[in-house]
């Protein structure tokens, strides 16, 4: 505590000084011992190289870091604007754990940062880790999925979700380095690197130069596993494999939108199992459906690297049983369709991609493959569309996605029952501004839909049914259903009804580039106009800054406790696998 106050006091004092340089990794960074990272100093002005002084714990930095940094006389911004001088040292590693105070000065500029280079235990606590993440998972999603899937009688749930029996162990603070708010790139990057970063950034600190691929890198968990273990790595997502969450295991870019580059970064690390969507970025630009701007054929490159390819549910099942170690499963050019459309309504793009697997199929296949490695594995499973359906305020689809996620959690728990040396983590990466406030009851009198919203005692219980016992409601358009409300959003029409024709599109852009309520829903009987409360360039609901609940069970789970910064989760994962101990 005293240390923290001192650190805060020194940070405040320095912030007050004129022309403070910026040092990456930032102050209070936590760094896995032995992990490579880039060290960068950004001076606010152009300085002379001979004036630059860098010490580490009072010694000249070269003696401690073992390398000399490159001096950049002038970094350029947009339109060649001179931003100042810089020092860059790439691929630095610190072999000895401990506290490191880095002091930098040049001319009138000075900055001091403290890093905690942490060790891990010597012997791994767990053989396997299954890290299950529902993108955007908020408390309302859990509650809603439970009520929708299991039902409720006299105030008690009629059943439990698979995730309900995994102890909630920590509240996770998701804020980013430049904002209290956050996105799926820097949040998952914090989990998967142990370093917080800026919105849209993956595996890097966000520097000031416009280029997105030159920012100071930090090591990702997949890279750390390759460096220190012989474990297998699996990435499973219902989104494009290049999307922020799956990409965070391997990628280094300031811009999550660098999806074409991210495919190359995936190939660099070669995770053993890759299952998801996003084939458009694997195809050369001459192939209709490609989203690349070059001719690279990554399907061929992955095959050459020893991957079997599966492109639908049938091929996935066949591949899971084969002896080929590496598996690339691409089931859609973009994101996979959501469960409600894929399995029930057959809307979205299901007609075009009729045989997509779901998260449960993919999780099972990945576990089949990865568990063959006697050294164990790290598997990341993402239910991407809990978030992708929460943005457009399509709560029915978001809840059905959460139910599917829970079934993947059940698969993981079954695996852990048989393999107790498995750590399971269940969490979200950030939250959404959503709550369940009651029900909508079509049987209530009148035509006004708003009058049919039941709150407090009038809410009663929804009448979803699950006659076939598959865990999903037989229909979502029942007469008394859950009413979820967002606390933010663009102008839109609230229809009080599930969107049976395809995912909700609340707002569309007009000629002034402002998002206005989508008129398509205006004439739905009883629809009411909802005035937006975010800037008009916002197309959908936004992420909340609220903490995320993290649940964990298995060896190593005792490391999660109380309030934790999202980046601190990495340290627990690293400890479970003893990643601080280099491979012989």
């Amino acid at each position, binding site marked *: 505590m005293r240390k923290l106050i001192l650190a805060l006091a020194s940070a405040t004092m320095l912030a007050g000084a004129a022309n403070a340089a910026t040092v990456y990794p930032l102050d209070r960074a936590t760094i896995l011992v032995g992990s490579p990272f880039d060290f960068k100093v950004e001076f606010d002005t152009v300085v002379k190289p001979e004036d630059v002084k860098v010490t580490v714990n009072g010694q000249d930095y070269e003696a401690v870091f073992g390398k000399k940094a490159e001096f950049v006389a002038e970094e350029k911004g947009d339109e060649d604007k001179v931003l100042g001088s810089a020092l860059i040292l790439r691929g630095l590693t610190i072999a000895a754990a401990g506290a490191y105070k880095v002091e930098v000065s040049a001319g009138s500029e000075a900055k001091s940062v403290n890093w905690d280079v942490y060790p891990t235990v010597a012997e791994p606590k767990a053989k396997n880790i299954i890290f299950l993440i529902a993108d955007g998972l908020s408390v309302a999603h859990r509650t809603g999925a439970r009520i929708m899937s299991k039902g409720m009688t006299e105030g008690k749930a009629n059943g439990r979700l698979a995730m309900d029996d995994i102890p909630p162990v920590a509240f996770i603070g998701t804020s980013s380095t430049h904002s209290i708010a956050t996105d799926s790139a820097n949040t998952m990057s914090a989990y998967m690197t142990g370093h917080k970063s800026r919105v849209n950034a993956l595996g890097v600190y966000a520097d000031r130069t416009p280029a997105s691929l030159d920012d100071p890198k930090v090591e990702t968990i997949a890279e750390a596993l390759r460096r220190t273990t012989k474990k297998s790595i699996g990435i499973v997502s219902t989104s494009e494999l290049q999307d922020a969450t799956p990409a965070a295991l391997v990628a280094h870019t300031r*811009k999550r*939108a660098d*999806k074409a580059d991210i495919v190359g970064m995936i190939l660099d690390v070669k995770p053993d199992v890759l299952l998801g969507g996003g*084939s*458009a970025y694997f*195809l050369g*630009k*001459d*192939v*209709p*459906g*490609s*989203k*690349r*701007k070059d001719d690279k054929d990554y*399907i061929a490159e992955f095959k050459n690297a020893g991957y079997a390819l599966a*492109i*639908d549910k049938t091929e996935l099942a066949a591949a899971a049983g084969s002896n080929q170690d590496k598996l690339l499963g*691409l*089931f*859609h*050019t*973009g994101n996979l369709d959501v469960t409600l459309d894929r399995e029930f309504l057959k809307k979205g*793009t299901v007609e*075009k*991609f009729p045989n997509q697997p779901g998260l449960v199929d993919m999780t099972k296949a990945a576990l089949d493959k990865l568990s063959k490695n006697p050294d164990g594995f790290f598997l990341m499973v993402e239910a991407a569309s809990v978030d992708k359906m929460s943005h*457009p305020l399509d709560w029915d689809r978001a809840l059905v996605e959460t139910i599917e996620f829970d079934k993947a959690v059940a698969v993981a728990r079954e695996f852990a029952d048989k393999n107790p040396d498995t750590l399971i983590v269940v969490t979200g990466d950030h939250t959404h501004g959503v709550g369940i406030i009651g029900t909508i009851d079509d049987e209530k009198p009148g035509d006004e839909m708003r009058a049919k919203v039941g709150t407090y005692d009038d809410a009663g219980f929804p009448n979803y049914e699950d006659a076939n016992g598959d865990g999903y409601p037989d229909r979502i358009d029942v007469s008394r259903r859950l009413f979820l409300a967002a606390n933010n959003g663009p102008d839109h029409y609230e229809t009080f009804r599930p969107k049976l024709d395809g995912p909700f*599109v*609340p*707002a*569309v*852009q*007009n*000629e002034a*580039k402002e*998002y*206005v309520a*989508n*008129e*398509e829903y205006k004439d739905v009987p009883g629809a009411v106009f909802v005035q937006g409360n975010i800037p008009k360039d916002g*197309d*959908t609901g936004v992420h909340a800054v609220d903490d995320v609940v993290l649940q964990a069970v298995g060896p190593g789970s005792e490391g999660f406790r109380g309030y934790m910064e999202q980046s601190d989760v990495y340290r627990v994962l690293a400890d479970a696998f003893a990643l601080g101990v280099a491979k012989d």
Partner: protein
Amino acid sequence: MTDDSRMFFDRRRMLCALAALPILPLARPALAAETLGFGELYKSFGVLGLEFSDKVKRLTGQEITIKGFMAPPLKAEANFFVLTEIPMSLCPFCSSDADWPDNILVVYLARKQTFVQFNAPIEAQGILEYGSWTDPDTGFVSQLRLREAAFDTA
């Protein structure tokens, strides 16, 4: 808006027809453009790529009309826009051109036209072209285009 663009549309079409006449004396009649629907663009969809329909292949190089929705332009000065089957809530150009659906058509206008209300359906007319093309000004890669095009509110 509607009246202006209709007038413009007609004038462009006339100019186009006049221009075409001396060069292509056997050219198709300018007004008999065949209609193409968004449901008719592809013969097959697949993870490893899409295949254009026989109709697209047959109509390539010919003037066609197609109904759809105009997505917000990349830049105010861009000489093309993207036509989509349904109104797009995303502005993919705002972050990247990554988030477009597969079934889009890039429309290169013969002359600048005023951006229409996004929710309103439009009808575009122009010469159909398929195959990969990288826009030299923006780097935007398209597979299916209308050249020398104009549009009208449908």
